[in-house]
């Protein structure tokens, strides 16, 4: 009995999660897809390293960190663009996007240098 109630509870949980998430605006969903893609690429790289070996280590490190870095920066962008965040209501989304671009530029400059 207990188990079926927990199963029902988890099903109800996932339902409410899905319905709550469907209510988010489209631009935030696009950013979420981008974050998911970046994390997926990072995981693929790690699996590849586990199969093939970690030489040259700097290329592996720069590849994985570039994926994680873009994911993190996209999450920061999402935080700043989200209209529900009261702390950032006076930051224009264009300014947030410009910061995002700048940070990505620095990140990828370093990646290019480190990849070897």
């Amino acid at each position, binding site marked *: 009995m207990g188990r079926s109630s927990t199963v029902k509870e988890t099903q109800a949980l996932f339902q409410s999660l899905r319905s709550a*998430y469907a209510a988010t605006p489209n631009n935030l969903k696009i950013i979420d897809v981008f974050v998911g893609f970046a994390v997926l690429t990072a995981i693929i790289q790690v699996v590849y390293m586990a199969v093939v070996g970690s030489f040259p*280590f700097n290329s592996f490190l720069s590849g994985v960190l570039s994926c994680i870095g873009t994911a993190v920066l996209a999450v*920061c962008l999402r935080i700043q663009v989200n209209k529900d965040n009261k702390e950032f209501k006076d930051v224009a989304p264009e300014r947030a996007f410009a*910061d995002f671009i700048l940070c990505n530029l620095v*990140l990828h400059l370093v990646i290019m240098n*480190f990849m070897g």
Partner: protein
Amino acid sequence: MASPESAVNGPTMTAGAASKSLRNAFGGVIAFIILVLIGVLAFSIRLFSVIKYESVIHEFDPYFNYRVTQFLSKNGIYDFWNWFDDRTWYPLGRVIGGTVYPGLTLTAGTIWKVVNSLNIPLSVETVCVFTAPIFSAFASWAAYLLTKEVKGPGAGLTAAALLAMVPSYISRSVAGSYDNEAVAIFALVFTFYLYIKTLNTGSLFYATLNALAYFYMVCSWGGYTFIINLIPMHVLLCIVTGRYSSRLYIAYAPLVVLGTLLASLVPVVGFNAVLTSEHFASFLVFIIIHVVALAYYIKGILSPKMFKVAVTLVVSVGLAVCCAVIAILIAVVASSPTKGWSGRSLTLLDPTYASKYIPIIASVSEHQPPTWPSYFMDINVLAFLVPAGIIACFMPLTDSSSFVILYIVTSVYFSGVMVRLMLVLAPAACILSGIALSEAFNVLTRSIKFQLPGIAGNPSIASEENGSSTVVAPNDIPKTEEAAKEKPAKKNRKKEKENVEKKPTPSKTEKRLLVLPLEASVIAVLLLVLLGAFYVVHCVWAAAEAYSAPSIVLTSHSNDGGLHVFDDFREAYSWLSHNTDVDDKVASWWDYGYQTTAMANRTVLVDNNTWNNTHIATVGTAMSSPEKQAWEIFHSLDVKYVLVVFGGVVGYPSDDINKFLWMVRIGGGVFPHIKEPDYLRDGQYRIDAQATPTMLNCLMYKLSYFRFVETDGKGFDRVRRTEIGKKHFKLTHFEEVFTTHHWMVRIYKLKPQRNRIRGKTKKSKSSRSVSSKRDVRGKRNPWH
């Protein structure tokens, strides 16, 4: 926030908007002028050594940095990046590009290049000598910015003025002390400022700048591990105390990713940025902050009941995963003998580690724990202003003030482990003292302002905004025994705040009663100014007398007030550079390696980098062995000259005989036939007639005291204050080639091998039987 300006401009409570903006502009101009003056003060207080002696590079390590900068300016950056130095650590050499922190040399090289391209003809040496004072001015400005973010411009100006003068920082950044810390402290304070700024504003732009400033810090100093451990600690503290916000995520997560990448770019750090335990804290907190961010996000989009269900589900699953991950991590870390930490970091965490396992780190005088008086000498008045500052940071407790509190607590611990790290304590102490002094002045001037006769009775708008601080602060400033009052003070503050919101009128009269009496405030202001005066006097004295000595030149005052200069070191190095071949190898103790390569331009065996313990132990063994064995060791390393520093004639206490026991210990750590008790008589280190025969026969004794008896007829050593044991002896394998004017540096040449050995066959038979006897005894001397 604008109290110093308002205190200066007088009580214009009911002024219109125009005069308020004029007042703000006036205040801004005054702040700017004060900052410029602070910069000039920071620069000029460090010039005592240039005025008293000359514009010369001090100590030992700066000579290496100077030599590297010379190479950079002559050969350009690509050759510098790929430089393999064969004139040191003979015959091993040293990869300079991969083992030096390039920040300082690149900074000075850039300054030199820019200045010369503007046709201002400064030499590399001048730029090197004056880099430290310039960057200390920058560090003061960075401290202003940091404290302004924490408390306000008044506290910022006070903190900047204190940092410009604090003796601990002066000691490592006088004009001529061209060492990593000169630039690194500026980078440290600036990185912290950008972190706090990002935390306060939540702007990704400042997060990028923060990562770049952290990169500059990694380039400059090995102490960057302090930053990459302090910031995760602070993030963890914020999360645990319930202060998580999305600004915290923006401040921390990009820094970790960008910072790790940038740190791996620097060749000295390389892959250590991801593989050593010093960085694991940042990765751990990175994972933790993502978990917390996800939790807050889900909490935001779900209803509370559903969230509870989610929590129970996640906790049960997550715990299992966590345990598995932690088990793997522990297995990986435990597989390395030092648990992944480097030797220097282990010394900081466990202060007794170095003396047990790494005698070289334990032997450096800078790595000893400080004595209590050195705290008062180095940070003076700030030592008792810091607790007041910590209390002021709790009223109110913001993210930035919690960071400053964490910074001071950790830096106090580390300064207790090593004297050298008092330098990291200095900016924290200045920031907190600036906060304390500024708050004290706030309260006192406000008390004076409201009680001056003739001023209208209604409290200003400003006092209502900071109502909490005026209510609480008079209770526990300046008599600071009331540290325990912090908790009831907080409760008071909450109660008063509610009272303020509900009933403004009675609370106004309440606030006026809680202001300090007028006469007490005036006297307190005068006393605080007097305190500041004592601090300034002490700092100027410390800068002029204690910390301005370039140890390459020594002075003493003769009885009639004249100044006598001992320039023996430079005399010896210039003799070497003029009277020996370019390829000759010079052997000395590792202290003098950098100076020999930089000034005498000769190849050395060991230098201050001390990266190869066995090589240093070889030199130590040679100095501790009898003449023949020492000659053989040096001959096998192609050494031609041996350099010894001897202070017995003039009373110079840092000579090689005083350092000799360390040579024995380090040599004995690698070659077991050197045993320290052989050189001690009854546990005491002596060089007089009671010394052991091993001591009287060793190379260091002979090279130091050769012909010493000719100076005064009795051989009285002024440093050890006894007559020496063996006075008349000849050297068989070395010959003296140069002794400086005050006998401080003595240079010997290895005598070449004899062409014919008389009675060769007989000697070989006896040596064979002797060596077999030695094998049987088991204490094999590897040099036979």
